[in-house]
Protein backbone atom coordinates (compact mmCIF):
# COMPACT_ATOMS: atom_id res chain seq x y z
CA UNK A 1 0.00 0.00 0.00
CA UNK A 2 1.48 3.39 -0.93
CA UNK A 3 2.35 5.77 1.86
CA UNK A 4 0.63 9.13 2.19
CA UNK A 5 3.76 10.85 0.93
CA UNK A 6 3.94 8.60 -2.15
CA UNK A 7 0.30 9.36 -2.89
CA UNK A 8 0.96 13.08 -2.44
CA UNK A 9 3.83 12.90 -4.94
CA UNK A 10 1.58 11.07 -7.40
CA UNK A 11 -1.16 13.64 -6.83
CA UNK A 12 1.39 16.37 -7.43
CA UNK A 13 1.98 14.79 -10.84
CA UNK A 14 -1.74 15.37 -11.58
CA UNK A 15 -2.88 11.87 -10.56
CA UNK A 16 -6.43 12.58 -9.37
CA UNK A 17 -6.95 9.04 -8.11
CA UNK A 18 -4.01 9.44 -5.72
CA UNK A 19 -5.53 12.60 -4.27
CA UNK A 20 -8.93 10.90 -3.99
CA UNK A 21 -7.28 8.15 -1.93
CA UNK A 22 -5.71 10.78 0.34
CA UNK A 23 -9.13 12.38 0.81
CA UNK A 24 -10.59 9.03 1.83
CA UNK A 25 -7.73 8.36 4.24
CA UNK A 26 -7.92 11.75 5.94
CA UNK A 27 -11.58 12.74 5.74
CA UNK A 28 -12.54 11.64 9.25
CA UNK A 29 -9.31 12.88 10.79
CA UNK A 30 -9.46 16.33 9.21
CA UNK A 31 -13.12 16.60 10.13
CA UNK A 32 -12.38 15.65 13.74
CA UNK A 33 -9.50 18.10 13.91
CA UNK A 34 -11.59 20.91 12.39
CA UNK A 35 -14.37 20.12 14.84
CA UNK A 36 -11.95 20.52 17.75
CA UNK A 37 -11.23 24.01 16.49
CA UNK A 38 -14.70 25.12 15.52
CA UNK A 39 -16.90 23.12 17.93
CA UNK A 40 -19.63 23.11 15.32
CA UNK A 41 -20.40 20.15 13.11
CA UNK A 42 -21.63 22.07 10.07
CA UNK A 43 -18.72 24.50 10.26
CA UNK A 44 -16.30 21.60 10.62
CA UNK A 45 -17.72 19.97 7.48
CA UNK A 46 -17.35 23.22 5.53
CA UNK A 47 -13.80 23.63 6.83
CA UNK A 48 -13.00 20.03 5.86
CA UNK A 49 -14.13 20.64 2.28
CA UNK A 50 -12.15 23.87 2.13
CA UNK A 51 -9.06 22.17 3.58
CA UNK A 52 -8.97 19.51 0.87
CA UNK A 53 -9.49 22.05 -1.91
CA UNK A 54 -6.69 24.23 -0.47
CA UNK A 55 -4.44 21.18 -0.15
CA UNK A 56 -5.14 20.21 -3.77
CA UNK A 57 -4.31 23.75 -4.91
CA UNK A 58 -1.12 23.83 -2.82
CA UNK A 59 0.11 20.35 -3.78
CA UNK A 60 2.93 21.81 -5.90
CA UNK A 61 4.33 23.32 -2.69
CA UNK A 62 4.27 20.02 -0.77
CA UNK A 63 7.79 19.09 0.27
CA UNK A 64 8.14 15.31 0.08
CA UNK A 65 10.66 15.37 2.91
CA UNK A 66 7.86 16.49 5.24
CA UNK A 67 5.10 14.34 6.62
CA UNK A 68 1.89 14.67 4.62
CA UNK A 69 -0.22 14.52 7.78
CA UNK A 70 1.65 17.44 9.34
CA UNK A 71 1.33 19.46 6.15
CA UNK A 72 -2.39 18.72 5.78
CA UNK A 73 -3.21 19.47 9.43
CA UNK A 74 -1.37 22.78 9.11
CA UNK A 75 -3.71 23.67 6.22
CA UNK A 76 -6.70 22.45 8.26
CA UNK A 77 -5.59 24.62 11.18
CA UNK A 78 -5.27 27.75 9.03
CA UNK A 79 -8.64 27.07 7.43
CA UNK A 80 -10.32 26.60 10.80
CA UNK A 81 -8.65 29.72 12.21
CA UNK A 82 -9.83 31.77 9.22
CA UNK A 83 -13.38 30.59 9.82
CA UNK A 84 -13.09 31.35 13.53
CA UNK A 85 -11.80 34.85 12.80
CA UNK A 86 -14.75 35.45 10.51
CA UNK A 87 -17.12 34.32 13.25
CA UNK A 88 -15.34 36.10 16.10
CA UNK A 89 -13.44 39.15 14.83
CA UNK A 90 -11.81 39.75 18.23
CA UNK A 91 -8.41 38.00 18.34
CA UNK A 92 -7.56 35.63 21.14
CA UNK A 93 -4.88 38.12 22.18
CA UNK A 94 -4.80 37.33 25.86
CA UNK A 95 -4.29 33.66 25.29
CA UNK A 96 -1.93 34.11 22.35
CA UNK A 97 0.42 36.19 24.47
CA UNK A 98 1.04 33.04 26.49
CA UNK A 99 3.21 31.78 23.64
CA UNK A 100 6.19 33.58 25.07
CA UNK A 101 6.21 31.29 28.07
CA UNK A 102 7.35 28.37 25.96
CA UNK A 103 10.87 28.28 27.39
CA UNK A 104 9.48 27.31 30.78
CA UNK A 105 8.13 24.05 29.42
CA UNK A 106 10.95 21.92 30.74
CA UNK A 107 10.62 23.34 34.25
CA UNK A 108 6.87 22.81 34.54
CA UNK A 109 5.74 19.80 36.51
CA UNK A 110 3.70 17.10 34.82
CA UNK A 111 -0.04 17.72 35.15
CA UNK A 112 -1.61 16.09 38.14
CA UNK A 113 -3.78 13.05 37.49
CA UNK A 114 -7.51 13.51 37.48
CA UNK A 115 -9.37 12.54 40.63
CA UNK A 116 -11.12 9.15 40.14
CA UNK A 117 -14.59 10.58 40.67
CA UNK A 118 -14.05 12.96 37.76
CA UNK A 119 -13.29 9.97 35.54
CA UNK A 120 -16.17 7.78 36.62
CA UNK A 121 -18.92 10.26 36.02
CA UNK A 122 -21.46 9.18 33.42
CA UNK A 123 -21.56 12.54 31.69
CA UNK A 124 -17.80 12.79 31.33
CA UNK A 125 -17.94 13.27 27.56
CA UNK A 126 -20.30 16.23 27.68
CA UNK A 127 -18.43 17.84 30.59
CA UNK A 128 -15.17 17.39 28.77
CA UNK A 129 -16.67 18.94 25.62
CA UNK A 130 -17.76 21.92 27.71
CA UNK A 131 -14.34 22.20 29.32
CA UNK A 132 -12.56 21.94 25.97
CA UNK A 133 -14.69 24.81 24.70
CA UNK A 134 -13.04 27.03 27.30
CA UNK A 135 -9.60 26.44 25.82
CA UNK A 136 -7.89 28.50 23.15
CA UNK A 137 -8.52 26.82 19.75
CA UNK A 138 -4.80 26.10 19.32
CA UNK A 139 -4.75 24.40 22.73
CA UNK A 140 -7.70 22.27 21.66
CA UNK A 141 -5.73 21.45 18.52
CA UNK A 142 -2.72 20.39 20.61
CA UNK A 143 -4.98 18.08 22.61
CA UNK A 144 -6.58 16.72 19.43
CA UNK A 145 -3.29 16.15 17.64
CA UNK A 146 -1.68 14.54 20.66
CA UNK A 147 -4.53 12.34 21.89
CA UNK A 148 -6.64 11.74 18.75
CA UNK A 149 -3.85 11.72 16.18
CA UNK A 150 -1.05 10.49 18.47
CA UNK A 151 1.34 13.06 17.05
CA UNK A 152 4.57 13.86 18.89
CA UNK A 153 5.14 17.35 20.26
CA UNK A 154 7.68 17.89 17.51
CA UNK A 155 5.08 17.11 14.84
CA UNK A 156 2.50 19.28 16.57
CA UNK A 157 5.00 22.13 16.72
CA UNK A 158 5.51 21.79 12.97
CA UNK A 159 1.78 21.71 12.30
CA UNK A 160 1.07 24.77 14.43
CA UNK A 161 4.25 26.60 13.40
CA UNK A 162 5.26 27.14 17.02
CA UNK A 163 8.37 26.20 19.02
CA UNK A 164 8.20 22.75 20.59
CA UNK A 165 8.63 24.09 24.15
CA UNK A 166 5.68 26.40 23.60
CA UNK A 167 3.60 23.45 22.49
CA UNK A 168 4.67 21.44 25.54
CA UNK A 169 3.89 24.23 27.95
CA UNK A 170 0.54 24.94 26.30
CA UNK A 171 -0.28 21.23 26.48
CA UNK A 172 0.47 21.14 30.20
CA UNK A 173 -1.49 24.31 30.82
CA UNK A 174 -4.42 22.96 28.83
CA UNK A 175 -4.44 19.74 30.85
CA UNK A 176 -4.31 21.77 34.05
CA UNK A 177 -7.23 23.87 32.90
CA UNK A 178 -9.25 20.79 31.96
CA UNK A 179 -8.42 19.09 35.23
CA UNK A 180 -9.52 22.13 37.24
CA UNK A 181 -12.65 22.44 35.18
CA UNK A 182 -13.65 18.80 35.44
CA UNK A 183 -12.92 18.67 39.17
CA UNK A 184 -14.80 21.90 39.75
CA UNK A 185 -17.85 20.68 37.86
CA UNK A 186 -17.67 17.37 39.67
CA UNK A 187 -17.59 19.08 43.06
CA UNK A 188 -20.22 21.58 41.99
CA UNK A 189 -22.65 18.82 41.13
Amino acid at each position, binding site marked *: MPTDEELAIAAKALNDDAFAELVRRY*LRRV*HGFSYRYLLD*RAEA*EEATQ*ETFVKAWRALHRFDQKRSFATWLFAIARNTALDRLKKKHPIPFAALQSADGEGDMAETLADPEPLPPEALDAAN*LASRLEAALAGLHPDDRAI*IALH*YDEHQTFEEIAETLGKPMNTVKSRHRRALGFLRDNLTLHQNGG
Partner: protein
Amino acid sequence: MEQYERVFAAARPPEPSGGLEAAVFARLQAARQARARRQFFGGAGILAASVGALVPAVQFLLSEVAQSGFAEYLNLAFSPNVLIYWQSLSLALLESLPALSGAAVLASIFGLLYSIRNMIISSRAAHLNMRLG
Protein backbone atom coordinates in the same frame (compact mmCIF):
# COMPACT_ATOMS: atom_id res chain seq x y z
CA MET B 1 -0.87 10.62 30.66
CA GLU B 2 -2.66 7.32 29.95
CA GLN B 3 -5.43 8.54 32.17
CA TYR B 4 -5.86 11.62 29.99
CA GLU B 5 -5.88 9.44 26.89
CA ARG B 6 -8.80 7.50 28.35
CA VAL B 7 -10.59 10.74 29.14
CA PHE B 8 -10.14 12.12 25.64
CA ALA B 9 -11.20 8.82 24.14
CA ALA B 10 -14.53 9.41 25.86
CA ALA B 11 -14.99 12.69 24.02
CA ARG B 12 -14.07 11.84 20.45
CA PRO B 13 -15.23 14.38 17.88
CA PRO B 14 -18.49 13.46 16.12
CA GLU B 15 -18.35 11.40 12.94
CA PRO B 16 -18.71 13.36 9.69
CA SER B 17 -22.03 13.12 7.89
CA GLY B 18 -22.38 10.49 5.18
CA GLY B 19 -22.41 13.09 2.43
CA LEU B 20 -19.15 14.78 3.37
CA GLU B 21 -16.94 12.67 1.12
CA ALA B 22 -19.17 13.36 -1.89
CA ALA B 23 -19.23 17.06 -0.98
CA VAL B 24 -15.41 17.17 -0.86
CA PHE B 25 -15.17 15.47 -4.26
CA ALA B 26 -17.75 17.86 -5.71
CA ARG B 27 -15.75 20.86 -4.44
CA LEU B 28 -12.55 19.38 -5.88
CA GLN B 29 -14.29 18.81 -9.20
CA ALA B 30 -15.47 22.43 -9.28
CA ALA B 31 -11.94 23.62 -8.44
CA ARG B 32 -10.47 21.45 -11.22
CA GLN B 33 -12.95 22.82 -13.75
CA ALA B 34 -12.27 26.40 -12.65
CA ARG B 35 -8.52 25.81 -13.04
CA ALA B 36 -9.00 24.26 -16.49
CA ARG B 37 -11.17 27.22 -17.54
CA ARG B 38 -8.60 29.70 -16.25
CA GLN B 39 -5.81 27.89 -18.06
CA PHE B 40 -7.84 27.73 -21.27
CA PHE B 41 -8.75 31.41 -21.32
CA GLY B 42 -5.28 32.41 -20.12
CA GLY B 43 -3.85 30.33 -22.95
CA ALA B 44 -6.25 31.92 -25.43
CA GLY B 45 -5.14 35.38 -24.27
CA ILE B 46 -1.45 34.52 -24.67
CA LEU B 47 -2.21 32.94 -28.06
CA ALA B 48 -3.94 36.08 -29.30
CA ALA B 49 -1.14 38.29 -27.95
CA SER B 50 1.54 36.06 -29.52
CA VAL B 51 -0.17 36.02 -32.92
CA GLY B 52 -0.66 39.78 -32.69
CA ALA B 53 2.99 40.31 -31.77
CA LEU B 54 4.41 37.85 -34.30
CA VAL B 55 3.51 39.85 -37.41
CA PRO B 56 5.17 43.16 -36.36
CA ALA B 57 8.09 41.21 -34.85
CA VAL B 58 8.75 39.44 -38.18
CA GLN B 59 8.44 42.77 -40.06
CA PHE B 60 10.88 44.35 -37.59
CA LEU B 61 13.27 41.42 -38.04
CA LEU B 62 13.17 41.66 -41.84
CA SER B 63 13.85 45.40 -41.80
CA GLU B 64 16.72 44.97 -39.29
CA VAL B 65 18.22 42.17 -41.41
CA ALA B 66 18.04 44.42 -44.49
CA GLN B 67 19.56 47.44 -42.70
CA SER B 68 22.35 45.64 -40.83
CA GLY B 69 23.84 43.86 -43.83
CA PHE B 70 23.44 40.55 -42.02
CA ALA B 71 22.07 38.87 -45.17
CA GLU B 72 25.13 39.93 -47.22
CA TYR B 73 27.53 38.67 -44.58
CA LEU B 74 25.59 35.43 -44.45
CA ASN B 75 26.00 35.04 -48.22
CA LEU B 76 29.75 35.42 -47.82
CA ALA B 77 29.71 32.48 -45.41
CA PHE B 78 28.91 30.22 -48.36
CA SER B 79 31.68 31.58 -50.60
CA PRO B 80 34.64 29.28 -51.39
CA ASN B 81 37.20 31.54 -49.65
CA VAL B 82 35.41 31.56 -46.31
CA LEU B 83 38.24 29.63 -44.61
CA ILE B 84 40.63 32.56 -45.18
CA TYR B 85 38.54 35.23 -43.47
CA TRP B 86 36.22 33.16 -41.23
CA GLN B 87 37.33 34.98 -38.07
CA SER B 88 36.47 38.48 -39.30
CA LEU B 89 33.32 37.15 -40.95
CA SER B 90 32.14 35.55 -37.69
CA LEU B 91 32.68 38.84 -35.91
CA ALA B 92 30.87 40.77 -38.61
CA LEU B 93 27.97 38.31 -38.50
CA LEU B 94 27.73 38.63 -34.75
CA GLU B 95 27.84 42.42 -34.88
CA SER B 96 25.19 42.63 -37.56
CA LEU B 97 22.92 40.06 -35.92
CA PRO B 98 19.47 41.65 -35.40
CA ALA B 99 19.34 40.56 -31.75
CA LEU B 100 16.40 42.63 -30.58
CA SER B 101 14.03 41.75 -33.38
CA GLY B 102 15.25 38.12 -33.31
CA ALA B 103 14.44 37.92 -29.60
CA ALA B 104 11.01 39.45 -30.24
CA VAL B 105 10.24 36.86 -32.93
CA LEU B 106 11.47 34.01 -30.73
CA ALA B 107 9.43 35.26 -27.76
CA SER B 108 6.30 35.42 -29.91
CA ILE B 109 6.90 31.90 -31.23
CA PHE B 110 7.53 30.51 -27.75
CA GLY B 111 4.43 32.29 -26.46
CA LEU B 112 2.42 30.80 -29.28
CA LEU B 113 3.67 27.26 -28.66
CA TYR B 114 3.28 27.58 -24.86
CA SER B 115 -0.30 28.81 -25.17
CA ILE B 116 -1.19 26.03 -27.62
CA ARG B 117 0.30 23.44 -25.24
CA ASN B 118 -1.61 24.90 -22.27
CA MET B 119 -4.85 25.03 -24.16
CA ILE B 120 -4.50 21.40 -25.24
CA ILE B 121 -3.75 20.32 -21.66
CA SER B 122 -6.65 22.29 -20.19
CA SER B 123 -9.05 21.07 -22.90
CA ARG B 124 -8.04 17.48 -22.16
CA ALA B 125 -8.48 18.08 -18.41
CA ALA B 126 -11.87 19.69 -18.95
CA HIS B 127 -12.92 16.81 -21.23
CA LEU B 128 -11.74 14.25 -18.66
CA ASN B 129 -13.52 16.11 -15.86
CA MET B 130 -16.73 16.15 -17.87
CA ARG B 131 -16.46 12.41 -18.41
CA LEU B 132 -15.68 11.71 -14.74
CA GLY B 133 -18.12 14.26 -13.39
